[in-house]
């Protein structure tokens, strides 16, 4: 860091890990009192998020998710301590490839940023400011900036390598990884996604993927044997089945899957896919949802709107976003990051498995949509498909400033959604990871106005303001 600015002791990763270490010591069943006691010690921002997760209807799922995370964080540290290689990966890269190695472990920058925002005092914005302090622009991806800021501005836990898998689908993500590697002099392995949906493009991607595998084997100093691959791929397939099951549960009306589970689902996907922890966590999410389906449980009197979020959600206030909406009868059918398109991997041979993994990687969120040949059309097609599958009656775009790709074509998405499926799209301008951009109260007002006037209104039937008013006027005249 530059003159006069001292490195902070312990950054985002360290703080979050210590926070989550507590989770393991918790009993499986938590009473309301125990929750109170547990959150008592937390700073206000963290408390509100943890409380949001631990309200009765979410408690079981949340605990499973938090356990999964704490073991993810713990294993990352253990890998580092035991001289293994921790590798920073973006969310749009399937971490199972790294899990397949014995001596390596993936840490996902967006997941870490989100944890910082959810669980740290001041919502991790301090780290975002550190990134800006370096001179990085205020329009860089907050999903990375929070974690990157911590890595640049504190003596935080550092990875030994970086996989830059957004090359092709996202400029800023790739650039952020580049400057991180430059700043800490750590190797960066680029996995480029050609913006080309033709067979040439796919072939090129398979080449790039197997080159990456080779580079990793050399870097980690370990051969990726067929057994290791199979061990992992089988777990991936199991988790994929559960993912598909959860997806189908979303189709029920009202949706038995709590809003927050959307975040949990890809939280697992982006960190522990290909491990037993992922399967355990997914199992709980599915079981809870099935139970709720049987009981016909739903947080509000009626399901007023089935919203498909087209990109991300807002993470800086879980209570104010996920729970607030479902308590009003606004269902999250999931957001753009739930568009994972699981691929069942053929485990018959090393090649078949690598091809399957490459295909899975090709189908990851962002990589698949804005990394596609046409950002607008690839994105639109997936959203249309999901909206139809899940019987969505409205869509909400919420993202962050740095997503230049979605921002530059969201106007096309809006027009086409209306034209092709009569689905109205609310465009929110806040930032998923920064409350400072648009306070949650403003966001909530937008959503209320939108659903109240545009979505629920349709169901209630028209007000016919013009006809009725003029008739009353005539009547009274």
């Amino acid at each position, binding site marked *: *860091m*530059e*003159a*006069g*600015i*001292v490195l902070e002791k312990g950054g985002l990763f360290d703080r979050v890990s210590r926070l989550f270490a507590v989770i393991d010591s918790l009993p499986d069943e938590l009473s309301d009192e125990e929750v109170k006691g547990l959150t008592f010690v937390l700073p*206000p921002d963290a408390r509100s998020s943890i409380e949001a997760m631990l309200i009765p209807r979410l408690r079981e799922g949340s605990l499973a998710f938090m356990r999964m995370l704490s073991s993810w964080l713990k294993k990352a540290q253990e890998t580092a301590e035991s001289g293994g290689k921790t590798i920073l990966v973006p969310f749009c890269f399937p971490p199972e490839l790294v899990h397949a190695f014995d001596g390596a472990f993936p840490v996902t920058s967006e997941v870490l940023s989100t944890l910082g925002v959810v669980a740290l005092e*001041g919502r991790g914005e301090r780290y975002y*400011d*550190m990134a*800006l*302090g*370096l*001179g990085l*622009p*205020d329009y860089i991806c907050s999903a990375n900036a929070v974690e990157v800021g911590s890595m640049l*501005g504190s003596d935080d836990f550092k990875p030994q390598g970086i996989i830059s898998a957004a090359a092709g689908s996202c400029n800023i993500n790739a650039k952020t990884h580049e400057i991180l590697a430059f700043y800490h002099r750590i190797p960066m392995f680029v996995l480029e996604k050609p913006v080309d949906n033709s067979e040439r493009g796919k072939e090129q991607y398979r080449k790039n993927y197997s080159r990456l595998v080779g580079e990793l084997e050399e870097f980690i100093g370990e051969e990726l044997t067929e057994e290791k691959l199979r061990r992992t791929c089988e777990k991936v397939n199991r988790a994929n089945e559960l993912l598909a099951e959860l997806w189908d549960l979303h189709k029920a009306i009202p949706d038995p899957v709590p809003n927050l589970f959307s975040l949990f689902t890809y939280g697992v996907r982006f960190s522990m896919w290909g491990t037993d922890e992922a399967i355990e966590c997914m199992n709980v999410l599915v079981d809870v949802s099935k139970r709720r389906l049987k009981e016909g449980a739903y947080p509000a009197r009626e399901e007023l709107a089935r919203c498909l979020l087209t990109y991300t959600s807002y993470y800086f206030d879980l209570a104010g976003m996920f729970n607030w909406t479902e308590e009003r009868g606004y269902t999250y059918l999931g957001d753009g990051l739930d568009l994972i398109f699981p691929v069942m991997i053929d485990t018959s041979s090393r090649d078949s498995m690598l091809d399957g993994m490459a295909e899975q990687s090709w189908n990851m969120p962002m990589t698949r949509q804005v990394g596609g040949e046409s950002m607008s059309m690839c994105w639109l097609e997936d959203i249309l498909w999901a909206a139809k599958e899940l019987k969505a009656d409205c869509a909400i775009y919420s993202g962050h400033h740095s997503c230049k790709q979605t921002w530059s074509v969201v106007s096309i998405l809006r027009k086409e959604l209306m034209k092709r499926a009569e689905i109205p799209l609310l465009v929110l301008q806040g930032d998923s990871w920064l*409350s*400072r*951009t*648009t*306070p949650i*109260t*403003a966001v909530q007002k937008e959503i209320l106005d939108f659903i109240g006037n545009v979505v629920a209104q349709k169901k209630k039937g028209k007000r016919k303001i013009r006809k009725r008013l003029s008739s009353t006027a005539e009547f009274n005249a």
Partner: protein
Amino acid sequence: MLFGGIDIGSLTAQAVIIEEPDGKSARLKIHTKSIRVKPDPVESAKEVMGALLKDIGINWEYMKYVVSTGYGRERVQQEGLSHDNISEISCHGAGAFALYPNVRTVIDIGGQDAKVIRVGPGGELENFVMNDKCAAGTGRFLEVMSKTIGTDYEKLGFLALKSRNRFELSSRCSIFAENEVLHYLQRGASVEDLAAGISRSMADRVMALARRVGVEREVMMTGGVAKNVAVKAELEKKLGLRIVSPSLDPQLIGAYGAAVLARRSWRES
């Protein structure tokens, strides 16, 4: 011998004259004047310098060398009111250094922009950064906010020190922040807490700048916002060091620096 500095800000215009008695004695006299700006910087320059000269009963022609800085500094020179024009960044650096040679970092928050200036051991301009992103964290931001809670930004500092509970100002855009502050005000938030929140968010913005060029002891704060004790205190906390206050009104440092540079140019020529 007389050397002058004229600094046209967005709200006020300042003039400083350094009077160097003939003979060996090094005792310099400093005369200062400050007025509200006129629409035209040339007018402001004429008036503020004129008034100052009147105060000390001296005519323009006795001025050996004058440097203009701030808004419209070039035009002030073109109109023959100054011999040279120098950016306010250099002037604040030079002014702070002349007052206190141990200064290495100058944090200058003016009406429209915030700057962090690094000065070398010889007083040279080593590096600087100026807010090129959002304008939150400028004097204007603080001014709008103060107006919203019905005070001025000097008093706002003292209010903030009385704050009991933490209030986080989430918006950065001054127009939205104004709305947000109103929102809480209408819902019964205490003016003290709001003031503290505003000052903290100010300090955050400035810190982001400071990190970019780095901060080295001693640090001096100049510009109008330096008069806000809460922002200063917040910055001291974040930097973990004490911030030196100039022995001159912080708003005069620019003009004083201009005069200092005028004197230097005269000697070198």
